[in-house]
């Protein structure tokens, strides 16, 4: 049996990939954006084959006139302008040119308290930082779990 010698984290750090500050920030932004999602699964409806005769049409019938969209008639109040997402609406408000206070100026400023650190594996207070991604961990056990699972997740 070969005994593996434990390498010190600091020594080992020199050989590992280290993410720069910008990448770490991007990772965090993506994590936070994920927390805004309504659903993580696919729409159950989208997993069904398209209903009606279109599904049964043979593949070579391309010469046929494409079926006109039926939905168009239903209520003309659903105009294009009722179909904008939050980001577009915010841009259109053009708030940077409007007098304060406005939506942007109302956001709470950063806290004056120092940030607290928690292990990204178990959630308990942590004292150590992963050299690769900057994530926090509390023990070697959590560090190895972190490296195996999360360390470079959300990285592009």
């Amino acid at each position, binding site marked *: 049996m070969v005994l593996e010698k434990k390498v010190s984290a600091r020594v080992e750090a020199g050989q590992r990939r280290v993410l720069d500050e910008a990448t770490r920030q991007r990772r*965090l932004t993506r*994590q*936070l954006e*994920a*927390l*805004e*999602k*309504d*659903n*993580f*699964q696919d*729409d*159950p*409806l989208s*997993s*069904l084959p398209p*209903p009606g005769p279109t599904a049964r049409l043979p593949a070579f019938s391309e010469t046929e006139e494409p079926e006109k969209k039926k939905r168009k008639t239903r209520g003309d*109040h*659903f105009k294009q*302008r*009722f*179909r*904008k*997402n*939050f980001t577009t*609406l*915010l841009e*259109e*408000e053009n708030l940077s040119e409007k007098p304060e*206070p*406005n*939506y942007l100026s*109302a*956001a*709470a*400023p*950063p*806290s*004056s*308290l120092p*940030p*607290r650190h*928690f292990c990204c*594996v*178990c*959630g*308990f*207070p942590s004292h150590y930082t992963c050299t690769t991604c900057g994530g926090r961990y509390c023990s070697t056990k959590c560090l190895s779990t972190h490296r195996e*699972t*999360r360390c470079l997740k959300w990285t592009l």
Partner: protein
Amino acid sequence: MATLVLDNGACTAKIGYSQEKVSVIPNCQFRSKTSRLKTFTANQLDEIKDPSGLFYILPFQKGYLVNWDVQRKVWDHLFGKEMFKVEFPDTSIIITEPYYNFTSIQESMNEILFEEYQFQSALRINAGSLSAHHYFQTKPLQLCCLVVDSGFSFTHIVPYCRSRKMKEGICRINVGGKLLTNHLKEIISYRQLHVMDETHVINQVKEDVCYVSQQFYKDMEVAQLKGEENTVMRDYVLPDFSSIKKGFCKPQEEMVFSGKYKTGEQILRLANERFAVPEMLFHPSDIGIQEMGIPEAIVYSIQSLPEEMQPHFYQNIVLTGGNTLFPGFRERLEEDLRSLVPAHLPVSVLLPANPICYSWEGGKLLAHNPDYDEMVVTREDYEENGHCICEEKFDI
């Protein structure tokens, strides 16, 4: 003439006639795995026998109404024969909107209320203004009040002086119930069981077991202990939607500390998750959101106001919105404020009996106010003057 009060929240609509009681109804549509072709609207949620993997279609994004298609369907259902049977030409509506609502959303709202539904008259107002109205009605001697509204999309802190909102003091923290549920889902999925698709179930877990810690680091220590000493730990029995319709917390005397149950139920074991999740309202920086927590933001908001008014605000803080229902929320907030506010100023935080419907009840009171008719815009006014009259009269 009837007055319909609709507190149109991003997660639930609080709706009812001003003479009657309030109903809390999901303000969204659902699709389920079991009946994939059907879309369920609002309280049709109850018809879904197996709401696992429930798919949400929400009309709101970050607290602002963007998907009118969905919103119309929900309103059609609420106003229609099955529910409130609204006689539009003979009905006035009080409807709520978020602070700093975008101009285009406000205009769409006018059009839909007056042109599509043809309400006799309408009053568009911030939910917080209704809460403040409620507060001043119950405490007529007070001049100022600070509304803390912690809802699904975000948390707002808004000072009101004699029912006028003080715009310069409005402060928004981008932490709400949706973020808390999603975060809980995320950490449970990472630590023990994949539940990313189970928003509906995990939201219930959050409501059933989460609480606001009074001594955060102390609770952290307790949550790390083994066996019976760990008084924070709870085992939550997940619903299977056949024999267990609704999840619940295992009674402490039935808890098996090894975690090996013979009953075959699916168990979630929760320890620090119980209080670390609501803690984000107090320290958003814990998950990397660079914003103040609620106590700090309250002080920040109040300090932006004239000095002679500040003591009045600290004494009249009122909590509304679903997040304030976490056990210990009020006590913790008062405690944290006490340590931030100068010692000679008294601090008082009120948690109403029903913080979710507090603003709806304020709307109900407002509908019976003698000045109400002066505040609304009638359909004739709107047809004559268009959006201008709404912009003039409504303070959004």
